[in-house]
């Protein structure tokens, strides 16, 4: 009994001791584990996440960013980069036999907002008629290139040109070389002289090239071709940048020359921080430079992609908004939503800007160098282009008017017309640069007809082809077009028309004209890193993935809208 009582008294004390011992043991263990874990984890952090100079985690100052590679889709997605196709005369006879066309790929947007069109573009060798047209179109540039400067006249023998038309000449030159109309010595002689001249051009107020230059002297002139300065055009420069990039990517041996041309230019005012493009003109009263937003739906996005190809970030200019649609022959035709009465700038809807995007850039994003031909990563551009095509075919089918509308020159007053699908609130509006309605000047534009033929392989474009492929003067080039009301040919010859026709023919042989860049770093990105010139002139850094323009989509028209 005692022993039971006695053991019962010792038990609480023992319990307290044991509790304290356990607590001390746990605490000591926890501390030891914590210390050990801390040592272990800290040691692992230093070993696992090292920041390597020039690596992904290294916040490289601007001074050192030039050596970074431009990030393209092939690098990020680890896809195979496209390759530059051979010249037509170097292609094997079965070159097109096994060419994948994506015939079974369904039409519409994919999850990355890329778009697959309903129709495919034409591919194959040029037949005799097409080759003849190409030779005649190239003959325009043979005739009207000034040997003193290497610049080609915009219109016939009038010695004046713009950067837009100079880009058309560059398009004609590439096409002539790739279609084997000329050989490399001739190609090199022409392009070297041209680039040398362009580098030496007197810029508009030391910023960017003037709108117009005299082709015989290379002097900047006004619209009357008298010495003077007008301003610069962001759209013209954008198109020129597209072709400079095409040359640089296709012919790496020209890269240094091309970069040195652009490294003379000052881009501080042409794109703002929002990514909107600005042109410049001279105020007549004060003689000061006025910068004004430039570009409307169609041309604006095309030019924006030209800037993006050189690392600029024209985010706002590349977006379709603000845009509206007009229902024409069941098609919701998109047009720029900025009211001309307020902004004093017309919202012309023409074929040309979409054609150039399709032919030269494949309706792809500037960073895309890997998607197949039938996938257009700049999806909404391809989808809008489909509407532009379809509304013209519908007009032909419902009214009988063969339709391929674009801006074009005409012989005699008013000398130039915007032959539009829609503008100023009216469908099929043919207007002069000041807005007069001139329906008698409506025409089937040669460049638009053959551009549509190249990008849309349809019965309708076959009709356009038949109307246009022999519309030439062997001595002067392809005619500008065919009057819609039966007045015959538009008897005028221009660099733009012949250049775009050559591009369309080259597209049939080689596909998208822009090919991937195959080099590493570029002088364009590395030059002047030790000076403040890059900062002052707003030269960009090599674009990284975060700098890519966003791929967007817009609502798709499901059914005809009458």
């Amino acid at each position, binding site marked *: 009994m005692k022993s039971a009582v006695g053991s019962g008294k010792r038990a609480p004390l023992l319990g307290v001791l044991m509790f304290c011992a356990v607590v001390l043991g746990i605490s000591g263990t926890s501390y030891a584990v914590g210390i050990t874990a801390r040592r272990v984890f800290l040691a692992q952090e230093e070993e696992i996440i090292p920041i390597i100079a020039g690596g992904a985690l290294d916040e490289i100052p601007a001074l050192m960013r030039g050596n970074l590679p431009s990030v393209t889709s092939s690098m990020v997605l680890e896809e195979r980069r496209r390759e530059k196709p051979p010249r037509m005369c170097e292609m094997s006879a079965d070159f097109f036999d096994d060419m994948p066309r994506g015939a079974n790929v369904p039409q519409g947007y994919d999850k990355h907002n890329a778009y697959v069109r309903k129709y495919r573009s034409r591919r194959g060798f040029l037949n005799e008629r097409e080759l003849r047209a190409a030779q005649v179109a190239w003959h325009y540039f*043979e*005739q*009207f*290139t*000034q*040997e*003193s400067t290497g610049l080609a006249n*915009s*219109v*016939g*023998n*009038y010695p*004046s*040109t*713009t950067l*837009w*038309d100079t880009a058309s000449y560059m398009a004609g030159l590439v096409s002539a070389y790739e279609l084997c109309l000329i050989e490399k010595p001739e190609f090199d002689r022409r392009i070297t002289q041209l680039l040398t001249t362009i580098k030496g051009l007197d810029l508009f107020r030391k910023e960017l090239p003037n709108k*117009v230059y005299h082709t015989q002297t290379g002097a900047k002139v*006004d*619209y*009357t*071709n*008298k010495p003077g300065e*007008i301003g610069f055009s962001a*759209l013209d420069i954008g198109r020129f940048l597209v072709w400079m990039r095409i040359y640089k990517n296709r012919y790496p041996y020209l890269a240094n020359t091309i970069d040195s041309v652009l490294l003379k230019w000052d881009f501080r005012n042409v794109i703002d921080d929002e990514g909107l493009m600005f042109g410049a*003109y001279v105020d*007549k009263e004060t003689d000061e430079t006025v910068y004004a937003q430039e570009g409307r739906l169609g041309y604006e996005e095309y030019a924006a992609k030209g800037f993006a190809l050189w690392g600029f970030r024209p985010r706002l200019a590349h977006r379709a908004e603000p845009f509206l649609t007009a229902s024409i022959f069941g098609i919701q035709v998109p047009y720029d939503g900025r009211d001309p009465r307020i902004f*004093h*700038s*017309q919202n*012309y809807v023409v074929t040309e800007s979409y054609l150039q995007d399709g032919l030269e850039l494949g309706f792809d994003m500037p960073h895309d160098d890997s998607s197949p031909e039938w996938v257009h990563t700049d999806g909404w551009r391809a989808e809008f282009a489909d509407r532009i095509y379809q509304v013209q075919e519908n007009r032909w089918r419902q009214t009988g008017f063969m339709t391929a509308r674009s*801006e074009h*020159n005409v*012989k*005699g*007053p008013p*000398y*130039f017309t*915007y032959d539009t699908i829609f503008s*100023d609130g*009216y469908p099929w509006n043919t207007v002069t*640069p*000041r*807005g*007069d*309605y001139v*329906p008698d000047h409506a025409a089937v534009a040669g460049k638009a007809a053959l551009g549509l033929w190249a990008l849309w392989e349809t019965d309708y474009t076959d009709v356009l082809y038949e109307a246009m492929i022999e519309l030439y003067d062997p*001595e*002067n080039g392809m005619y500008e077009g065919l009057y819609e009301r039966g007045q015959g040919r538009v008897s*005028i*010859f221009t660099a733009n028309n012949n250049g775009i026709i050559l591009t369309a023919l080259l597209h049939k042989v080689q596909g998208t004209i822009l090919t991937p860049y195959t080099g590493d770093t570029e002088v364009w990105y590395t030059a002047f890193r030790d000076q403040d010139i890059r900062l002052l002139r707003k030269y960009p850094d090599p674009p990284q993935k975060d700098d890519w323009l966003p791929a967007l989509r817009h609502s798709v028209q499901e059914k005809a809208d009458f």
Partner: protein
Amino acid sequence: MRHIMQTLFLSMAVLTGGWAPATGQPAIAQDRSAEAFASENAILDTAIPFAIGAREARQALRGAFGWPSFQEGLVEGVYFRFDPDGYARFAPTPRLDVDVFEVICRPRTYACAARKDGLEVFLTDRGQLQMRLENALAGDMFFVSEGVSEIQVPERILQPLDVQLELLLGAGGELSTRRGGTEVSRVSLKGFSAVTAYLRWIAARQDYVVLPRGWPVPNAETAGGMTKPAAWNSPMPQPQVVAPGYGASMTSGIAPPTSAAPLTYPGQAPQAGLVPGGAMPSVQVQPLAIQPVLSAYGAAPSDVLDAETLRRELSGLKDLIVEAQGNGTGASPAPTAWRTADGAFAEPPTSMDLALLLETLERLQAQVAHLQSEGGAGFEPAVETALDPQGSQGYVAGGRLDGARLSAQDQTGERLAYLVKQLGFDAQTAVAILQASPDAAPGVQQSGAVLGGALVSEISMQQPGVLYENAMVDQILAELEAEMVSAEAQAPRQEVSREEYQLLSRYFVSVGLPTLLPESQPRHAQQP
């Protein structure tokens, strides 16, 4: 050695034509389209508004050439746009797509024509408005219709238009042409008045003074240098007509505004064609393009005086006299009468009146000379040319007082020689002018006063018109006019004989100031 060989090779290549550069240019027909935009073809400044609310805008140029700007606006119910080369469209819809008057100017001139369907409107060399209808033949009848009502207009609408016809056509409606009861053409006249104003505005180098009264031009003060303040702000009637002699030097003259009474020229031969035998088309004398001479007293030096303009004005007056004399010789004097500003007829002024008027004219001359002296040294040569003392003396028929230094006989002889040799008067007229001088012998003063008065009257008759755009001269002329009116009121009318009256008439008829002719009187005074 290698360099020499290269040079030789290149030289041979060039000589043999093997050098590609020279062979590149084709021998094709020159494309002149781009040259239409040469700066020499710009005749208008699109920054100067044609009417209130018009604005200059930039053309949407994509190419390498074109006009960089244009002007658009709305006036008198029609929309318009025009380019620096004068090419314009006027239409009742903002799209300028239907019912369009299209104006095309001959390159590098101010000669423009407006066209709509078969109708063409243009200014003649004398600045008169004239129409041409494509399908019109002799014997066609013309009607202006508005809705269900219509009015027949005479065939002389195809001749230079008088103001009544111009106002009628400018009122709108449609002009129809009928042949044998069948309508052969119908042209809308919508925009007619605006386009005719535009034609005159071009010819006047964008001077607002030629636009019709009530035309909505911008206020001179707010428009800065675009308007001509001295002319536009003048309380005096705006210039409307000027001497025909000025028109000869102008490619295309300025016609008077439509609201102005036209100055008919009886000496003008009827133009062959559709004019009825007895009907004489009224001819508007070509007006003068005059730069603003004087804005106001005490204005800035640059605005004070244009000696060249003064010289031209005086020269014009001299031409008038010469031309009048040339036309008047041999012509039978015709009776005529004075017509006052309100159109009533009055007796011609007496010698006393004329003495007063001559004195006023002398004062005017002195003031002009004074102004020239104030105009700065730069004006001196021109002023000397314009105001030669002898010429001044002769011109005002002895109005200068410095003749006191000469004997009366010498002075008279010198004046006579000047009038005959320099101004081309015949001896009889020169003597008559001298007789009109206030310091001439009393015996000859009475008859001679008539011609002196003629000179003053000529100036006074031109006053509503135009020669003087500046406020100072306008003011002087207003004073002159007031004095003439008061002199007429005070004058004893019996003092003028019928012969003196005829002499005066002969002069004015030959000069061609129609307002001196009574409308009821047969136009037998017309000169061939």
